[in-house]
């Protein structure tokens, strides 16, 4: 079963083709990964899925419905949430408030309801606090709820971004380099967290990551991009020994050597 399908997806920036005709089907309820060397077009790929860029050609379908041309804030309501490669938290707001912003699309309180403090609006506001708190518990940040987001340590900021994305209650969670800048212990915790998200909620997770240990350990299905085109796809074992992947990462000479496997270099 496919949750998200892209076909013949193309995005050009002037003369540069950042993504050039990629086809892929992301399985429902599984963890998939998009990998590739720097500049391979991974983030452009994510930006098209989340509506920040409009693809020049091709189709993106979420649950069978096209999301090409849909505005970014509407795509969230359709069930795609994301985190960012360079962290984009609401720095001067508290940790709890950051998660509460994530719940925006599920809240109905309008201006009138808020000003008059109508029972429905008040009740909703109460439940927002509680639900946001539970999400913080889920990612293990409940102790820091009143802290300013900008003051959190790096790893915690990454987890907060995940909690905030979860607050939108997505069908598909896109994680753009969630382990970037993390130490091995933080990465290990992150692996546990992502696995828990997938197991406890059945959510489909798609991640971009350079940390091969994390990718190979978590993903069931991997898409490898290089220069904007798909050079391989398949399970971790298949990708690890795929000659084109090794070539893309290590150069042609590496392929000719014996027994080169991708994790050796990571």
């Amino acid at each position: 079963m496919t949750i998200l399908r892209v076909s013949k997806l193309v995005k050009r920036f002037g003369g540069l083709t950042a993504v050039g005709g990629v086809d892929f089907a992301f399985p429902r309820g599984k963890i998939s990964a998009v990998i590739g060397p720097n500049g391979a077009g991974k983030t452009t790929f994510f930006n098209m899925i989340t509506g920040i860029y409009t693809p020049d050609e091709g189709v993106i379908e979420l649950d069978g419905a096209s999301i090409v041309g849909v505005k970014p804030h509407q795509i969230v309501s359709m069930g795609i949430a994301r985190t960012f490669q360079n962290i984009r938290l609401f720095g001067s707001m508290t940790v709890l408030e950051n998660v509460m912003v994530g719940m925006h699309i599920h809240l109905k309180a309008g201006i009138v309801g808020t000003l008059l403090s109508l029972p429905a609006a008040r009740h909703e506001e109460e439940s927002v606090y509680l639900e946001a708190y539970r999400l913080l518990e889920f990612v293990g940040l409940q102790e820091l709820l009143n802290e300013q987001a900008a003051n959190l340590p790096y790893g915690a900021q990454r987890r907060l971004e995940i909690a905030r994305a979860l607050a939108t209650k997505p069908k598909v969670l896109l994680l753009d380099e969630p382990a970037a800048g993390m130490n091995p212990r933080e990465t290990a915790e992150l692996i546990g967290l992502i696995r828990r998200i997938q197991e406890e909620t059945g959510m489909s997770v798609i991640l971009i990551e350079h940390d091969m240990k994390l990718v190979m350990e978590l993903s069931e299905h991997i898409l490898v991009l290089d220069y904007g085109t798909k050079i391989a796809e398949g399970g971790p074992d298949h990708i690890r020994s795929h000659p084109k992947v090794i070539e893309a990462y290590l150069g042609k000479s590496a392929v000719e050597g014996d027994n080169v496997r991708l994790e050796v270099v990571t």
Partner: protein
Amino acid sequence: MNHLKLWLGRSQPAQALLLTLFVLFTAASVYFSDKSVVAFLLLLGSLLLLYLTTFRTSIKWGIGAVLLVVVIPFATSGGPAHQSYMEVATQCGIYIAMALGLNIVVGFAGLLDLGFVAFFAVGAYTYAIFATPQANEFISGQLFPLPGGAFWIFIVLGGFMAALFGLLLGLPVLRVKGDYLAIVTLGFGEIIRIIFNNLDRPVNITNGAMGLSSIQPPSLFGFSFTFPNQFYFIVILILAIVIFSVKRLEHSRLGRAWKAIRENEIAAQSMGIPLIRTKLTAFAIGASFSGMMGVVFAAKQTFIDPTSFTLLESITILVMVLLGGMGSVPGVILGAALVTILNLQVLTELTNWINQLTLQGIIHIPNSISPSKMQRLIFGAILVLVAIFRPNGLITAKNKKVDAERLKTLSTGRSLSVTSPAKQHSGGVGQ
């Protein structure tokens, strides 16, 4: 000193005693002196003292209301300067409401607006045109001026018109960001003023540079409001509504969306917040506060012309917000009060004093550098000093702290719901 501070911080009876003594003392000095600017300022300062106490919020509001509605009007009524005190207090109220409106745009949503006074002008003209015979120029039937009773409807109408102009301005303008937005809004402010200045031809709507005079004073059940001490109560009432609204909005879905946009537009949009629409609401709500006070201003002055709505006014309101603390409601109130008092009381009194000394031949300060003409210099200096020493303003915006323990207790034993958007949609999250 520190001991005293700690002890005061803990002991509410001591705070109450101190506050009472302070209020009694300042109120008495205002009441018994002919005109003492210092005593009056100290009396207003009691509100700041009240803010610093550790009483419960509802008690603070109660005491604040008593101070504003009973103590201050009564204390100032003792001497011949009654109306001039009340005039200052009324102006303070008008500017506080406007600064709170601008604070929504600049402080919460992070959109630098340099033409904010335009909305004030829209509100003022909305009332002025229909509360003078002016409207007869373009509406037949000699129906105008409207009776003073219409004023109350026009408060709402003025707010509504200003909000409408906020939307009209916002639609094209909010596509640009940062410095560009500041310049475009500055242009808009000037355009509105120039339009009001020139809209006497081909159809005379605003009476151009001549302005509109003899604006009907408000009336209620036959009672007519003409003096500052009467307008004071209208302003207090509207101000109460404005503060109340801002407080509610600040910690609501909408308030969080504004702040999220201020912090990071891309992330905000990735959380499902529609950028343009949310920014437009900030513009409209901020503008409506300004428009309401515009109506009051027109009725109070009984005369308005385009010169009341210059760029300097916009800058003044912005200085109030920056001085007080962007995004901080108590800060903005303090900032607005300080700047208004500086303008109306301190600078004027200083000028009078220097003039007297000059007349007596003690010193010679040429008229061209009298303090009341140095407003712009002083604002500039304030901005520089604030930027260096208190970049977050006099009272820094605070985040709402929540009771972690309470949430923890509530949270235990319930399962997390992050799945299945479809079901969550139909079920509603408010359950």
